[in-house]
């Protein structure tokens, strides 16, 4: 499988409310990321818009339904459609999540948690290899946020990710907010997580907001509906100090999407923190 070269840049998710902004003017981002499934269609306006945006900017295809942790294997029709889109777009990266979404009977349309066992690792690796062979390219796999763990877990999530990357040659999409959310929910040290993942395999970082715990609910939830919180910014700065290669950093907002200038201002914050982190390392 071909290696994926590091990409240095800052981008946003391309969402419907901002289509006109991206079509009508030059938005100061280095790339956009789209939800693959929204464009795995036969034709119509969404694909035409994606084609036009692609003429201006690199595009990342980010999937939510491959279900690489599914013991029932991958959906071939899904892979065929993703491959058609990949050929059309020539994306910077193709990514999905370390999770499962379906059984052979039903689809949850949610990123469900995997037990961190050798059996699950073997299933995930087989599915990633299948997907990479089908697509003819290496993928990026994102660490999920999760709300429960399994009694039969045999390893930590960062150990699972490291072994997954080693066995399959895939790369990592590090979602710093997800690390923070899961660390809060499961009581581990987010910095220990960062120290444990193979950072040389990281090609992209996601930043997002989450819903804090409240009376009656101790779990914090990955909702992508608000600004990145200070604790996640601090974790991002720490990650940037640890990383020795450039990465693509992105702000992910999927709900209560604000006007584009607000997201661009937040992205400027990421640029500033990344620059300061690198300066600190150099000093």
């Amino acid at each position: 499988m071909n290696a994926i070269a590091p990409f240095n840049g800052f981008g946003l998710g391309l969402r419907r409310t901002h289509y006109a902004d991206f079509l009508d003017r030059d938005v100061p981002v280095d790339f956009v990321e789209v939800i693959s499934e929204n464009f795995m269609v036969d034709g119509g306006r969404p694909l035409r818009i994606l084609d036009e945006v692609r003429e201006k900017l690199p595009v990342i295809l980010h999937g939510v339904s491959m279900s690489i942790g599914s013991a029932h294997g991958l959906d071939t029709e899904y892979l065929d459609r993703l491959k058609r889109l990949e050929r059309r777009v020539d994306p910077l990266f193709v990514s999905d999540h370390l999770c499962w979404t379906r059984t052979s009977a039903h689809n949850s349309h949610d990123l469900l948690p995997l037990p961190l066992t050798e059996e699950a690792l073997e299933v995930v690796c087989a599915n990633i290899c299948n997907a990479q062979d089908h697509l003819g390219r290496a993928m990026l796999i994102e660490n999920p946020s999760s709300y429960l763990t399994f009694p039969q877990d045999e390893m930590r999530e960062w150990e699972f990710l490291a072994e997954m990357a080693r066995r399959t040659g895939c790369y990592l999409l590090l979602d710093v907010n997800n690390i923070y959310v899961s660390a809060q929910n499961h009581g581990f040290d987010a910095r220990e997580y960062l120290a444990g993942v193979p950072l040389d395999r990281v090609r992209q970082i996601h930043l997002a907001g989450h819903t804090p715990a409240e009376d009656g609910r101790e779990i914090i939830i990955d909702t992508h509906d608000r600004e990145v919180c200070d604790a996640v910014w601090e974790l991002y700065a720490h990650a940037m100090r640890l990383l020795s290669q450039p990465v693509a950093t992105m702000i992910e907002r999927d709900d209560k999407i604000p006007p584009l200038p607000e997201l661009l201002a937040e992205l400027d914050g990421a640029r500033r923190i990344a620059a300061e982190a690198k300066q600190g390392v150099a000093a």
Partner: protein
Amino acid sequence: MTMAAAPLADLQTTFLAQVLDADAPLPHGWGSSHAAGMAVYRNNYRSALIDALRAIYERTERWVGADAFGRAAAHHVISHPPTSWTLDDAGIGFDATCAELFTGDPEVGELAWLEGAMMDVFTAADSTAMDAAGFSAATAAFGEEDWAGLQLAFQPGSSSCVVRHDLRAIWQHVADEDASGVAVTPLDHPATCIVWREGERSTFTMASTLEGRAFTTMQAGASYGVLCEMLSDELGVEQAIMQAGQFLGHWLAEGMIVGLRS
């Protein structure tokens, strides 16, 4: 089943059953932290699907009101757990769900059908409509047998449904934010609603049920000769030939035809 020692496939089947059924008892050995986590997954599942239905059936929601729509959507999510990887398919069967739930307002199921069809055709394969000049050129050398064997290709994703209410009036009405307070009277005769795409825009027309049958017959691959035969059963031969020509002209004028099938 205990989930502690289950192989991954069994664990996933059991876990998803827990997500789908909010009343299912938790697996043996699960404590309060697992229950709290499962509550988040259950809520995520339902809210994602209900949000998807709200996005597809914006006008239907406006017509029945947010509360009634929310109850119908929740019922549909429970009774039709999704099988497809795409959320666009979450609405499969929702028109039937609405017809079942809004028995006193039969236009609701029809409106939901229309809205689902408009969404489906929105991302159908691209194609260019054949205009009258193009059709004339393509059939210029046709003899009688060629006409009898003529088959038409319609815009990809086109669909039709027999309805009993004036969906054009309802559709225009629910384009406004406030769609309340409108009396709905059934049509004097059933009609056929035909949906297709003009360029990038989904559109529809209300046709007679006779034209609707002609459309579905030709869309299914029947020849022009078969269409004329079908119509002659109701209209007689001469009138049938004239009527078939009028339907053809209407479909060409509306941009519903993309070419001749070879």
